[in-house]
């Protein structure tokens, strides 16, 4: 296997709610939401990892913690084997870049595309002043935008083009890993297809390593080599995409995959799963999925399953009934 770029061990991000003075004086515990709760995984060079889950499962929080937008509450994060502390060095910040869901909110409306790219290139001293224009043009052609875009402002572009600008901006820093948080979710399907193709091209041509976060399972299937399924702050299943789709092991993954509407002609909707995502709690007892699980047994109420390998493969599952 190729080199490990980013690895997380026991990574957690807990959000702590605000407390009134009265409840503080009464010695009450503040409300804690363990959005990401003890997650272990590795990202290898040149690999695309698809992170899926329903809203509130912690997938965006995990992405933002990896980029450094949120400080981690606990756990270890390392880049090329070097531990990342609370204060990242400039080099470490540059290495992990992100593209966001809403391409309009994430671009400065008062800066032309050229200025935007120049600012970051010069700040990080990636090119000399003389060569900066040339590099900007290179970046634009990389993401399939016309050179005239340099003088234009974000409002002059369509949604898909804005997303291309977001990608160009992230690539300008020559990141080691790109984190795409719902990067195609706000786009129409035909535009979505062209952005997915662009990311596939960049992966092939530049050997881009990527963490692709999405709730859209069909898109994840197209783009990722490995898939990570999250449920209530934990990874419940991870493995090579083909293997997980062909043979899902965790009851939640099975339920998730069977819920997705299919494009196959004549496909008829199956029986719908019961139950809803339970509320996040500060402490869970037993397996987090047991309230919705169709095969739960008594010990699921007490035993918190670990993410373990099955049959010596790279396929890992957190369910005591599978092992």
């Amino acid at each position, binding site marked *: 296997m190729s080199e490990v770029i980013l690895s997380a061990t026991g990574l957690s991000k807990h959000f702590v709610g605000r407390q009134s003075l009265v409840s503080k004086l009464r010695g009450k515990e503040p409300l804690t939401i363990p959005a990401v709760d003890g997650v272990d995984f590795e990202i290898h060079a040149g690999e695309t990892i698809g992170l899926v889950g329903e809203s509130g499962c912690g997938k965006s929080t995990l992405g933002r913690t990896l980029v450094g937008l949120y400080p981690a509450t606990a756990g270890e994060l390392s880049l090329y084997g070097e531990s990342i502390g609370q204060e990242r060095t400039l080099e470490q910040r540059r290495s992990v870049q992100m593209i966001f869901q809403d391409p309009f909110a994430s671009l400065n409306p008062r800066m032309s595309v050229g200025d935007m790219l120049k600012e970051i290139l010069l700040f990080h001293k990636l090119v000399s002043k003389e060569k900066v224009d040339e590099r900007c043009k290179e970046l634009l052609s990389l993401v399939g935008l016309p050179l005239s875009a340099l003088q234009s402002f974000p409002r002059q572009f369509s949604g898909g083009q804005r997303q291309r600008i977001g990608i160009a901006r992230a690539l300008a820093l020559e990141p080691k890993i790109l984190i795409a948080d719902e990067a195609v979710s706000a786009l*129409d*399907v035909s535009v979505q*297809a062209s952005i997915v193709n662009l990311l596939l091209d960049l992966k092939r041509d530049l050997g881009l390593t990527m963490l692709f976060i999405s709730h859209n399972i069909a898109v994840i299937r197209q783009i990722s080599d490995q898939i990570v399924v999250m449920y209530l702050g934990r990874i419940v299943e991870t493995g090579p995409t083909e293997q997980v789709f062909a043979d899902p092991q965790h009851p939640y993954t099975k339920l*998730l995959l069977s819920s997705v509407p299919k494009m196959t*002609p004549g496909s008829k909707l*199956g029986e719908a799963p019961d139950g809803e995502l339970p509320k996040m709690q500060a402490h869970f007892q037993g397996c987090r999925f047991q309230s919705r699980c169709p095969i739960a047994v008594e010990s699921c109420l007490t035993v918190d399953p670990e993410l373990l390998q099955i049959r010596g493969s790279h396929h890992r599952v957190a369910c005591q009934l599978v092992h």
Partner: protein
Amino acid sequence: MSTPFLSVRNLHVDIETNRGLLKAIRGISLDVNEGQSIGIVGESGSGKSITLKAILGLLPKNARITSGDIFIEGQSLFELSEKARRQLLAEKIGIVFQDAIAALNPVLTVGTQIAEIPHRRMGWSKEKSRERAIELMTLVGIPEAEKRLKVYPHQLSGGLRQRVAIAIALSGNPRLIFCDEPTTALDVTIQAQVLRLLLDLRQKENTGIVFVTHDLAVVNEICQEVNVMYAGRFVERGNVQDTFQDPTHPYAYSLLKSAPDMDHQVERLFSISGEAPDLTKTFVGCPFAPRCFAVSDLCRTTEPDLLPIRTSLSACHHSQNYLDKLSEARA
């Protein structure tokens, strides 16, 4: 053939915008029979939501119907007084929107909202309306219906709120439900539950469904007929099975191919170059021509009509031989 339940004839809708007059709907016709489920798909701006709003008389102030006619059970809506029209629509058609929290009244309990139509419009007693509300909540799968009568929308999860919205839509015993992206804001497991519910309702109560969405896979799963909309017109209409298997319009083909399918992984997704036309500007010929792989000179001068081909209707000059063109374009 008997009169269709809902019939739309050559409808045109214009919207006044600050960029000029936008021709949002440019002549569409649609028939929905009793108990039929119809999907309308298209990308943003194609006019699918405006179609629903125009039928229901819910168009925004700056939009108006410029020509065309709408019939419910043979009765033209435009021949009725405003009051009679609203009464008829309220009795016959229910509607479910994408955003349930915006569609529900935040200061009334869900019980009050579900009982409102039976009580106010149908003149039922309070007690009887309340019982009807419990019945409807049970029907749409809200557990502990009696207790939940007294909760407010914000106390419910997204899936339950959408169920409440469906219960309200059903409260007047409509023959048809309009669904405007009802599951787009929901998680996929919850979406599966709501779709299952709509399917069951159609089977049990023979309620017709008009389902507007951008999600092709959802239409494939729950509709009988699909209408593909592009630039304010239907470009293809056919039964779901045939259209998904073998679309006859190049846009329908492109749209189906560009949607990722969770059953298959492909090397590259099909993508459509260019953008949809700006409907504030006048254009000649087929609106899809600049983006089409089967385009000819005829397409650039004459806009095609929606005409029968095989089991479907298609608005393309080249439906007959576009598949040949397609293989040429691939080669």
